[in-house]
Structure formats: C-alpha cells, structure tokens
C-alpha cells in the first residue's frame, strides 16, 4: 500500500481518481452529498465541496472511518461498499486524496456558531418580552365586574358587541367549583348548607373552605404531577421501580396545600438539595425530595451505550424543565437550532451542561441514585449494620448449601432411574414402597418424583416435561437418560458458578471489610426442568429436612450463627428515609454535539441559559458546581419573562378548561397566541406581587363573574365566538378520570381519605412475563387516585381509557376523547356496579319513601334536587323495572339499575 502511494505520479493519480474514485462518489454518495442537498453540510460532487468538508470536519479524514462501517456513523447508509472499492478509497486517501483540478484547500465550512443575530421578529416575539402590568381596562357595564379579571374579559366581549352568558345557578356553581378545587363533588350537607346560606358572602365562604381543605392539594398537586410527568417507575425497557417517588408526590401535594410560594416551589424542584434547610445545621430534607422533579423521568436502563443513555437522561431533564417551567420546547434544539423559535443548539447544550454536571445514578452503572434523608453518619451506621446481617445470612446459607449439595450429588447419577421408577407408580399404579425397594432408590425422593411428574392439570404442567410425556413406552429409557444428561450438564455450569461465588465470598468475609459479592440466582427461564428439580421439586430439600442432612458439628455451628444473626437483627438501627433525587456530579466540560451525536463534539457549551431570554438581565457566568442553583434562581426571578406567565396560564386552564395560551407547554412560535394577552400579563404580575401565591390566583379567578357564568351556549355565541376564545360563556368540561373515580367513591361513601405514603411494594423490576409488571388497578384501591402508584410501562386500563396520558412527558393538558369503550366501563365494570349497589343499599336503608330515596340519589350523584318530571320518570322506572322483570328481579335490582343510570349519565360526567 505504501509503495503504491509513493509510486503515484500526478497524472496516474488523476486517472486513478477518474476510474476508481469518482464513480464511487457519483453512484454511492452524491445522491445526498451534492451541491444542492449538502446533507450534513457535505458536497461530494466537486473538488471544492470535498475540500470544504462537512459539519463533522474535513471529508478526507472521515472517509475511511465511515465507509469501513466500524464507526457509529456508517456510510453509505444503503449498504457497505465492496471490498475493492474500500481498498481503492484507502489507496486514494493514503496518496493524499487529491481531487483533480482542485485549487488550494478552501476553508472548512464554518462550524455551528455559539450565537447569532436574532431577527427583529424573534426579538419582538411576545413571549420573550418582559411582563408589564397593564392598566385594567374600563368597561361600559360596570355592574358585571367583581374582580379585575372581569374587566379584561368584558372589555373584549364589548369590543365585539357580545354579552357574557347569564350567571350559573347556585348548585351548578357549587358543583363546578368543588370539583375544580378539590376533584370531588360537594357532599349532601355542603349542598344543603349552601342553599340555606343567603348571605352575600356565601360563595366566598365556600371558596375559603375548599382552599383550606387538604383535598385541594390532592387535586391541584395532580395537575402539577401531569406537568412533571410523574410516575413510580423508569418505564422504557426494564421499568424499574422508583421506590421513593411517592415522597416527591407527597411534597407536591403539601406544597399546594401550604400555598408554598411558586418561586420557591420552582427553586426547590431544580436545586432544593443546594438550598439551606429551614433550621441551620439540618439536612434540607424537603429540598432533596423536591429534586425528584428531575430524577423521576423515564430512563432506558438497559441501554448498552451508556454515554447515549446519560445524554438521553439529561435531554429528558432539559425537556421537562423547559416545557414545564419556561413554556418552550428547548429539547428540539438537540441536533440543530430550533426550527421555529430563537433557541440555539448552543442554548440546548449549555443547559445540558448543567445536568451533565448533576448526578442521577449511584455509580457509573445503571443503579439509580437514592439519597438518604438522614445525616451521613446515621445512614452509614445503618448500611454497615445491614451489611453485617446480609453477610451473616449468606454465611448460614453457604454452610447449608454445601450440605445440600453433597446430598444432591448422591442423587444425580440416578435421575433417569427415578424418572422411570416414578412412571411405574403414576402410570402403572405400582406401589411406591415396592418400587423403591426393588430399585434400591430412596422412597421419600421417589415420592417427590411421582408428585412432580404426575400432573393432570395441563395449564399448570411444566412444558419442559412435554418430551417426557410424549415419549413412546419403548423410548422412555432413552428419554430419561437424555433428561439426566441435560441435567448433569446444567449442573456442571451451575456448580462452577456457585463455586466461583463461594470462593470470592469466603475470601471477602475473611477480610471483614469487604461487602459480599451478590449471590448468583438461577433463572427459571434458563432451564425450567433443572430449576424445578433442584430448587422446588424432587431433589430439593425442605427446611425441616435440612437438619437431618447436617453433621452434628455443622448443626452446632449453624445454631451459633443463627443466634448471632438474631442479635444483629434485634439491634438493627431504624431504616433511614430515602428519596429518589439528584445531587451534584463530577465536573464535565460540555461541548456542543454536532447533529446530536456525542461522537462529534463541537465548540464548548459552558453552563448558561437560553440567550433570547437573558437579554434583559445577563446572568453572571456559572463558575462552579452544576449550575442548578443559578438556574433555579434565574427561573424564579420576577424578571424572567416566562415563569410567572406559564404558571398563571396553567392555573387559568385548570378553571376554564383552556388556558389564555391554549398550548400550555409551548409559548413559542408554534404554540398558540394568548387570547387575552393583557389579562395574562395582569395575572402574571399580580401573581408575583402576591408573593407567588397560587391560592391568591385561584381566589382572583373563581371569585370573578367570568368564572361564574352559565355554560349554556346562546345561539348568537355559536356564530360569533364558536371556540369560546372570548370567554362568552363557561366551557362545559368532562370530568377527568380521577374526578370520575374519586367522585364516585366519595358519592357512595367508600373513599378512603388517608393521605401520603406508598402502596408500591418492592424494588427493581420483575421477570419479563410477570403480571407484577402491571400497575395496580385503581378500581381495587379505595384511596384517592393520586396515591395509586403507576408503573410507566403498563398503566392501568382505566387510565388509558379516560385519557390520563402516558406519564412520561410533560402533559400540561390532557386531550379528551369520547369513545365507546368508556361507555362499556360505565355499563359493565365491577367498579360501577359496586358503586351503584352501595348507593342503592344506602338509600333503601336510610329513606323510607321512594321519592325521598330518589331525592337523595340525585343529591349524592348529581348534587341537586330532581325536577318534578324527573321524579316521576325515576319512580315509574323503578316500578316498571320491578314489574317487567318480576320473575328474576327485586326492588333492590331496580334501584341498583337506577343508580347506575345516574352515574352513567351525561350530567354526572360533564361539569356545567
């Protein structure tokens, strides 16, 4: 090769190029890398293009790598070049890669810049302007104004010559605001007392009561959990449990209940672990828990390309922070500058830098980071003690295993004999004792073989025995022998593995300070026959029988160890509280990754915030640490153009169904524009003025006349404001899945209002086909839905059915559908049946007359009194049902049926 390279004279080189190289470029590369398309910035149709190279550098330096298919980037993508072609390319590159007719090498294409001039339109885009508190507009009709919100709404309506809808009636309003603020219906007593209260403050009193109720935090905490894409497992591939995720969930609920200032809420979720605790010298427990916001995203733990996995985690964190708190889709700038918004790839990687300097994993491997919520010394004392217990337990197991193993060794050579003997018993009805005597096999073991091999239940039968069962009588001996051989082979493997472990374990226990290596576990899937025979079936030894195998001295030793273990367990310090959280990581100098590929690092990307948002208030450079603290402070500054706007918009949406910006997670160019921009800014500045009090915002909104309008849609509104963008009436909305479920449990009095804690059991994940991978069914749990743990990879059917979303990405708004399977749930599910039966039983027991019963049902389910025609219709339904199906049905069935009708009704599920 070297000789060839040296021997080339210029014209020979040219000829070689024309004959061998140009055709390769022309046929295999130029489809994409031409002057017009320039995919990856590369043009391979001209000498200039080749010399300029592409985004990842000069073409000559990359050519051999990518065509060899040894690198991540493989070219051409349609298939590897032929070996001769590759050899030719190599020759050409080694001889200098000269392209005939090329002039002096031109400059390589400029690499991505760290900044660019924003256009005027970008600079003027509404969402990046500072918030300025507008004057409250005057309106012609002043009588309609209750809070400043009304000025903004009415002014717009008047401008278009529209009138706001009439006020909603009292009970409609009560149901509306009770569901909105607490996710539950008003109780019978609450309905009655509100009807009876004629004071002008009646409604305000209700608001105060609802905002003070712990149920409020559960409802509004849930809204935030949607935004924070909260779930209790990693999802993606392995779906490992986040065993302490619930602490973050409880933190969120508590934050809303305590009206934690939103700026503080933001700071804690980004950098709570770096903020001082309430009392000096204490651990900031709450702060650590709050960073669960960053820690609880979906993760692909099995990803073999670890670097890619880490950067996917950081990407997910940039995505959740930018959409949840800033209302921009910064993650779109991973591979190229944002296509629509003035967000640069540099901005993206500067934010990535912050998370690349933050730790999410306990080690370089895939172990999730769990942070203790106790001082370091306490935690260490606990883990050391736990390790001693673990070591002692293993020591006992080790001794027992050895004895059991000796015993099994004596049986293995007779495996085939046992199978054949057992068959005589279960198939030919021979007597076990007789067969044992004849064959010289152990009777107790033979009995277990019979039990294992004989089974009539096909479903429960071990498929690894199919071959045995299907064997023709004359083949039985051979088949049994084959089973024995396979068993012996597997046993050799397994023994080798165990011996290796045992040697390491003994060495480590001898050198007391080393934690014992993890003990190998035989995976049932690997060999079900071996597994069953060795650990469950004929060759296994029950706890009771183990003693019999032990020599006296071993027994004594074991007894001593057991006593020691008991003492250790008795003196175990309390288990420390833990959290799924993040912490400061090792320093990393982040680069821009060209086209998102970490194999192509570009310019430096020092920790910083998006340029377009920092024009008014250039934050100082981040010198040390991850930069999370600085990010938290920058986000929660009153001057930040987006933080307050995004949150008040979420609050508004929670009450009106749609936000002032109807794309709550995207305030960028592709998002919608605010329907009432001045109102949005008024709310945002009031929010900041109130000390970022979420409850003050609720009050300002729900006390407005705008919120108290009827949901009737007048005909003229249909023409003039079909999408209700002017808010000419209240938007009727379907209850969420939580409101449906919790609301019905509340209606029949079975809702368990215990707060907090976790219902999720266990750690890690489960075997591939295990049903433990499913989320718990919310139908089976009487707690509020927000406390039902969710396995991301397999959410409950009920949640999928009623548009819960996927708990994996920021979901500021749930798209609602109305589909037939939802109706099936109402008609057929055990859950609805149970609610209906409970309600029927209750009203039949408590109320003597049919009318009284019906009134109570209306109160419980629809939170109002029935109209006279409804009363008539309901009563005749009960009577007629009973009459019509008298042969099989009773009066209770009729009431039960009527309860289900009320529950399934549109009026229950649509909030007026």
């Amino acid at each position, binding site marked *: 090769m070297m000789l060839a390279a040296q021997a080339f004279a210029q014209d020979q080189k040219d000829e070689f190029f024309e004959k061998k190289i140009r055709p390769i470029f022309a046929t295999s590369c130029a489809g994409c890398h031409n002057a017009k398309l320039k995919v990856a910035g590369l043009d391979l149709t001209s000498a200039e293009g080749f010399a300029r190279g592409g985004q990842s550098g000069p073409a000559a330096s990359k050519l051999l790598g990518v065509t060899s298919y040894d690198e991540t980037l493989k070219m051409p993508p349609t298939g590897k070049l032929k070996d001769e072609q590759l050899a030719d390319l190599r020759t050409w590159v080694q001889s200098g890669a000269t392209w005939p007719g090329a002039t002096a090498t031109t400059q390589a294409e400029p690499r991505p810049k760290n900044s660019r001039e924003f256009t005027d339109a970008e600079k003027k885009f509404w969402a990046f302007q500072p918030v300025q508190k507008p004057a409250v507009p005057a309106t012609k009709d002043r009588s309609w104004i209750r809070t400043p919100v009304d000025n903004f709404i009415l002014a717009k309506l008047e401008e278009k010559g529209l009138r706001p809808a009439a006020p909603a009636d009292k009970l409609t309003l009560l149901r509306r605001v009770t569901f909105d603020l607490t996710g539950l219906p008003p109780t019978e007593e609450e309905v009655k007392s509100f009807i009876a209260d004629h004071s002008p403050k009646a409604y305000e009193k209700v608001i105060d009561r609802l905002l003070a109720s712990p149920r409020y935090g559960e409802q509004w905490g849930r809204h935030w959990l949607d935004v924070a894409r909260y779930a209790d497992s990693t999802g993606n591939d392995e779906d490992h449990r986040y065993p302490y995720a619930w602490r973050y969930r409880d933190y969120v609920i508590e934050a809303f209940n305590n009206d934690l200032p939103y700026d503080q809420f933001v700071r804690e979720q980004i950098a709570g672990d770096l903020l001082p605790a309430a009392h000096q010298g204490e651990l900031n427990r709450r702060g650590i828990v709050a960073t669960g916001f960053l820690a609880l995203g979906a993760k*692909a733990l099995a990803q073999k390309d670890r670097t890619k996995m880490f950067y996917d985690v950081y990407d997910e964190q940039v995505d959740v922070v930018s959409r949840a708190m800033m209302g921009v889709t910064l993650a779109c700038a991973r591979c190229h500058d944002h296509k629509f918004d003035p967000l640069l790839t540099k901005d993206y990687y500067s934010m990535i830098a912050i998370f690349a300097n933050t730790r999410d994993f306990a080690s370089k491997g895939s172990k999730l980071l769990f942070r203790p919520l106790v001082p370091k010394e306490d935690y260490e004392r606990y883990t050391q003690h736990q390790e001693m217990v673990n070591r002692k337990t293993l020591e006992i197991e080790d001794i027992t295993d050895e004895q059991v193993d000796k015993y099994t060794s004596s049986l293995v050579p007779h495996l085939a004999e046992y199978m054949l003997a057992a068959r005589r018993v279960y198939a030919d009805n021979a007597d076990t004792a007789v067969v044992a005597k004849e064959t010289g096999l152990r009777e107790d073991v033979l009995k277990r073989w019979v039990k294992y091999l004989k089974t009539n239940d096909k479903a429960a039968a071990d498929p690894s025995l199919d071959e045995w069962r299907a064997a023709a009588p004359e083949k039985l001996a051979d088949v049994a022998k084959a089973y024995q051989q396979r068993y012996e082979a597997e046993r050799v493997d397994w023994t080798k593995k165990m011996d290796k472990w045992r040697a390491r374990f003994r060495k480590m226990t001898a050198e007391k300070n080393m934690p014992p290596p993890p003990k190998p576990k035989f995976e049932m899937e690997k060999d079900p026959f071996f597994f069953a025979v060795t650990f469950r079936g004929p060759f296994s030894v029950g706890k009771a029988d183990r003693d019999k195998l032990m020599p006296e001295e071993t027994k004594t030793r074991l007894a001593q160890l057991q006593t020691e273990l008991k003492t250790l367990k008795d003196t175990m310090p309390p288990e420390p509280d833990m959290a799924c959280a993040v912490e400061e990581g090792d320093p990393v100098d982040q680069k821009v990754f060209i086209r998102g590929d970490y194999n192509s690092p570009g310019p430096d990307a020092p920790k910083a915030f998006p340029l377009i948002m920092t024009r008014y208030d250039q934050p100082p450079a981040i010198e040390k640490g991850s930069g999370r603290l600085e990010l938290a402070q920058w986000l929660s500054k009153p001057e930040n153009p987006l933080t307050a706007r995004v949150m008040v918009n979420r609050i508004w949406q929670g009450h009106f169904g749609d936000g002032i910006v109807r794309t709550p997670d995207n305030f960028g160019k592709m998002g919608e524009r605010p329907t009432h921009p001045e109102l949005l800014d008024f709310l945002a500045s009031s929010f900041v003025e109130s000390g970022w009090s979420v409850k003050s915002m609720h009050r300002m909104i729900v006390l407005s006349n705008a919120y108290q309008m009827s949901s009737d849609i007048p005909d003229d509104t249909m023409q003039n404001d079909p999408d209700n963008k002017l808010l000419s009436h209240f938007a009727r909305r379907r209850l969420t899945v939580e409101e449906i479920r919790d609301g019905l449990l509340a209606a029949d009095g079975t809702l368990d209002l215990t707060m907090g804690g976790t219902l999720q059991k266990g750690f890690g994940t489960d075997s591939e086909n295990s049903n433990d991978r499913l989320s718990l069914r919310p139908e089976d749990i009487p707690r509020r839905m927000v406390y039902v743990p969710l396995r991301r990879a397999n959410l409950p059917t009920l949640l999928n059915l009623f548009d819960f979303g996927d708990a994996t990405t920021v979901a500021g708004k749930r798209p609602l559908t109305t589909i037939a399977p939802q109706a099936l749930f109402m008609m057929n599910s055990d859950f609805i049946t149970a609610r209906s039966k409970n309600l029927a039983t209750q009203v039949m027991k408590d109320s003597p007359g049919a009318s009284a019963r019906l009134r109570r049902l209306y109160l419980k389910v629809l939170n109002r009194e029935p109209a006279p025609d409804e009363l008539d219709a309901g009563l005749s339904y009960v009577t007629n049902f009973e009459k019509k199906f008298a042969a099989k049905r009773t009066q209770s069935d009729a009431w039960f049926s009527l309860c289900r009708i009320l529950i399934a009704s549109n009026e229950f599920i649509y909030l007026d």
Partner: protein
Amino acid sequence: MSRRAALRAAACGFGYLGLSDLLHAADNPLSVKQPHFAPKAKRVIFLFMHGGPSSIDTFDPKPKLYTDNGKPLPIKRPLAFAGEPPGPLMKPMWDFNQHGKSGIPVSTLFPTVATCVDDLCVVRSMVGEGVDHGAALLQTFTGSSTFVRPSMGAWTLYGLGTENNNLPGFITIKPALSHGGSKNWGSAFLPGAYQGTAIGNAGLKVDDVKGEPIEYLLQKGFTGEEQRYELDMLQNMNRRQASLRKNDPQLEARIQTFELAFRMQMEAPEAFQVEKESEETKKLYGMDEDVTRDFGWQCLLARRLAERGVRYIQCTHSYKWDQHSDLFVKHSQNAKEVDKPIAGLLKDLKAKGLLKDTLVIWAGEFGRTPVSQGGNGRDHNPYGYTTWMAGGGVKAGFVYGATDEIGYHAVEDRMHIHDFHATVLHLLGFDHKRLTYRYSGRDFRLTDVAGVVAEKILS
C-alpha cells in the same frame, strides 16, 4: 374555526346527528379516513417473535459459517449486549433446503412455513439500533428507542380509522409487559382512541384470556333485555339533559357512544369465539396439538379479526427466543410452537382471498450473532437480520437485501427500521412524510426525520 366548533355550528342547524353520521363525523377519531393514495394493504397482521430469533439459523443461510466454524470473528465486534469477549464463529445448527418455485432457502426449523415460501418476501437486511431488548422493541414498534412515540398500530389507526366500530381497530394478542410494555402498543401523544387494545398478556395462557378477552366488554349481571331497558332510561335522561343545553354536540356524541358500546358488547364476543371454527381449520393452525395450541389460537383469532375489519393485529409469541445459551433445544422448541400456526394463517388467508390486501409481517426485535456465546448460544444482533412479509402489496417469493458473508452486518439494500416503517406505511397508502401529528409545536411522524421506501419489494 376548529373541527369541534364546525360541528357545533352544524349541530345548531341540523339538530341531532344520526349514528351513521357520527361514525363518519369529523369529531369521531375513528371514522374511516382516506389515505394519501390507493393502498395495497388494508390491514396488518404482525407476528412478533419476542426475544430475537436467529436469522442465520432460519432464513439467511451463510455457507461461510460452515467453513469457518470455530474461527475467530474476522471483524471488529460492534457494540454487543454480552459483556464478555466474543466467542468464535458458530455454524448454524440446522440445515437449509431450497423450497418452492422461488427456491428460497429455509432451514429445517420452519418446515411448514417453508411450504409457503413462494408467498414470502424475505428481507435479509434489517438494521436497528437497539442492542438490548427494550430499545429494540420500542424502536421496532414506535420508531424510537429513546423517546415515547406512538406505536405503528396507533399511526395506522390514526391514518385510516376503523371499518368496524364494534371492535377495537388495533388489537394486540398476548403482548409483552416487559421491554417497553404497553408503550409498544400505546398512542403516546396521539389521542387515546388510537392505542392498541390488549387481549391478555404474554404471561397468561390462552385459557386464562378467553373468558373476557377485552376488559369491561361483558355484562355479567343483567340480561340483554334488562340492560337495554336500563340503557333506554339512561338515554332518555341524557336527551332531556341535552335539550336543556343547546349547541353542545359533545353531549350527543356521548349518547351515541353508549349505543355503539351496546352493539359492541353484543357483537364483539362472537369475534373471539375461535372454538366455532371447523375442526379442519383448527387443525390447520395446529390447535389439535398441545405444542401449537396457544399460538394457533392467536393466529386463528388474528384471521377472524382481520375478516371483521380490524386494522392492525399483533400476535406475540412470548419472550422465548432469547437464546444466549441452549440455542439448539430452545430454538427447536420455539419454532415448533409457531411453525404450523403461521403456515396455517398464511394458507387460510390465501384461501379466503384475504392475503392480497392483508400485510403479514414476521419479525423479532433483532437477530442473533454469528459468533457463539458460551459455546451453545448467540448474542443479540441488530446490525443485520431477517424479517419477512407476505401479502398486501409485497413481491411474493422474493428475497431483498443481504448481510455480509458471516451474517453480522446488512450490506446490500439495508432496511433500517425507519425504512421498514416507511415501507409499511406506503403499502397502507401513506407517504410516511405526510402522515404527521402536531404535538408540542412540532409535526411528528412514525419515521422521525428518516425513512426510505424499499421500492424494490413492492409488487
């Protein structure tokens, strides 16, 4: 004006929408929609071999592996799942024979499928990126191993709607709960109406599933007559309520979903009554033998669903094909469980005239390495593996693409999973670049920013 607003305005003038209107109304997410151009396939049946069957032991013979058996891997090993260094090249444990008029070689693992080889379009150049199961499944079914994206079944339903409102439009039979679980048949940011409906899961036996194939489908207490009586009262109540609230079509829409649900529960269970098929048919699918009974049931159910207009059906052969060791015994057993049912399905579809517009896909999440792992197993190989398709618009008796001489990398007509998705969508009548959904300010598609239709395999 939004679609909903348009519908409202219409409702204003025309009163109630009838049921049939509703099935086609813009507001019904499942109403039948026209694709971009005339489709070759109207529906898909995806036979998924979870775990990763070995291509070089089934449909991609590599003579070099026989001659070089035991020699070290001649190339640099790409990213592998196994931690230990690669073992030597290992020859296939089964013989290959040519079959049919096309003479396409199939190993003795699939003797019955081999008799259908003239109907197959064997793609030997599949390429994916996931070296672990989770990433590979997610990419196979959603296009992305990293982000949560709608599954290809959900895209199909979103694009085409459903022809049978009495059944879900996207059904997955005994899917895996692991390796992404329901994300593999989920709708992600597409509306929930497009997600797959699971019939049981891979951890259950068919006998556990048959009783109530779809959750909430069956009324367990009331008779049909009693339930209709109850429903009439409900609808009266709902109509009364709607009459007091003008101009809101969502109220009427929900009234109609109850009618739809009522019909669904009357008619859908029939589709699941696989037992009603003739003995001869059941035998064709191997339902008369223990070893093939379960997958036979899945395949036969798939045909019944296809006949009834279900758009996208998946049958998962549970997580069995992952032979890091014991390749010979386990692959033999696995192939035995599916060989006859798959061939039965192909023959039955053909006989019923369904194969021409049904696209059948057979695939694992990746193939397996030509080098041995521990002497009797093979590691994961997403760099070059085989899937096959049949029916709906693909060339029959055709081989597409090739791997290198040891079967590690695809080198000829490489079909990346994005290309595979682009091709499937093409067969269903879509330009994959135009089947998009706006979410979070971006138009998303199944093929992300990639995908080239494999023109050569189109019939």
